[in-house]
């Protein structure tokens, strides 16, 4: 077996030492730091991006919350404006209602007063006519010319109960 020939050992050991140490130095000094740098940079970038994404998400959530609040506020204010307008309209309607009612009541009162006045006037004018009719009737029936004062008293007496 060629492996067991000690004559070929020294050269292998020497070249093993040279190449292995060179390999070690290349890997230790050049290759590994570069790979580590790249991996680290990537990890940093990933972390940064994740952090950024988280921050953006939080910002978006804040904005959403703000928007929701604004919307709720707007809704509330719209509701109150609506309520106010409704109340105002109700009050106006009531006011106008009562105004019309008052006007109607006043007109009714006036009309009633006018009716009463007309009735009084009619009655008083009726009284004069009645007096004349009574004077003429008594003269014709019993031939007595009654005095104006007596007739008026008698008419008033009779009409008094009807008034």
């Amino acid at each position, binding site marked *: 077996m060629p492996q067991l020939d000690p004559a070929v050992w020294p050269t*292998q*050991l020497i070249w093993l030492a040279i190449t292995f140490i060179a*390999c070690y130095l290349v*890997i230790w000094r050049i*290759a590994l730091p570069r*790979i580590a740098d*790249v991996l680290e940079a990537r990890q940093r*970038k990933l972390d940064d991006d994740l952090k950024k994404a988280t921050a953006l998400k939080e910002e978006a959530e804040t904005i959403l919350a703000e928007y929701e609040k604004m919307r709720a506020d707007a809704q509330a204010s719209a509701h109150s404006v609506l309520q106010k307008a409704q109340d105002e309209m109700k009050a106006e309607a009531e006011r106008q209602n009562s105004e019309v009612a008052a006007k109607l009541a006043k007109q009714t009162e006036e009309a009633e007063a006018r009716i009463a006045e007309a009735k009084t006037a009619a009655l008083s004018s009726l009284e004069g006519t009645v007096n004349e009719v009574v004077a003429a009737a008594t003269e014709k029936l019993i031939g007595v010319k009654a005095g104006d004062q007596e007739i008026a008293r008698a008419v008033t007496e009779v009409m008094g109960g009807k008034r």
Partner: protein
Amino acid sequence: MAEGGGGHSPLEQFEIKSIFPAGGHGGEVGTFAFTNSSLMMVAALVLISAFLILGMRRGALVPGRMQSLAEMSYEFIAGLISDTVGAEGRRYFPIIFTLFMFILFGNLLGMLPYSFTFTSHIIVTFALAAMVFIGVTVLAIAKHGMHFFSFFVPPGAPLAMWPLLIPIEVISYLSRPISLSVRLFANMLAGHTLLKVIAGFIGVLGVFGILPFALVVALTGLEILIAFLQAYVFAILTCLYINDALHLH
């Protein structure tokens, strides 16, 4: 050590041949001779450097194919260390990574036809294992001082058992570099010899040579798996030894 005669010995592939100075078949190989083994070691060095440095030259945020592979190998070994040794193991990352890559590329380069597998030589694997063994022992003594020798006393063992257990523990500790080196060496030796032996049947069997040919193809796949596996085993055992050195029991 070449077998005489014109027949191809399955072991011929393991012969060390001098390239510079040019040595004849079975000629003397000088101490500083640049051999087929040296060529493959230099090739491994160049390929590892190219793989790791050229692959990472763009340092892109989104890696390409080569960069992904380089990063994957980095993260594979980093994961291996953090699983077996923990955070303290970060310091030994370069040496474990170098061991893994060097053995992996040595194994894989050996899978190329007409190339040479330097990890199939016991002296190479033993030198690597001895380096790990000495390094780990020095590390343990530097960290724990004389307390290191308590490592050879299993915790909780009754005093009466010590005379039996301590020699066992010492022998098991001392056999670490041997098992570590022989495992890699034997796997490579056996795999390549088997491939060569079966490949030898292809020409002899004529039309039926298709059967050993298919077997060689399948075994080549298996050998590539073993190339990875043995590099991984070497690296993980190194990690476990470092863990032992750091924490003793």
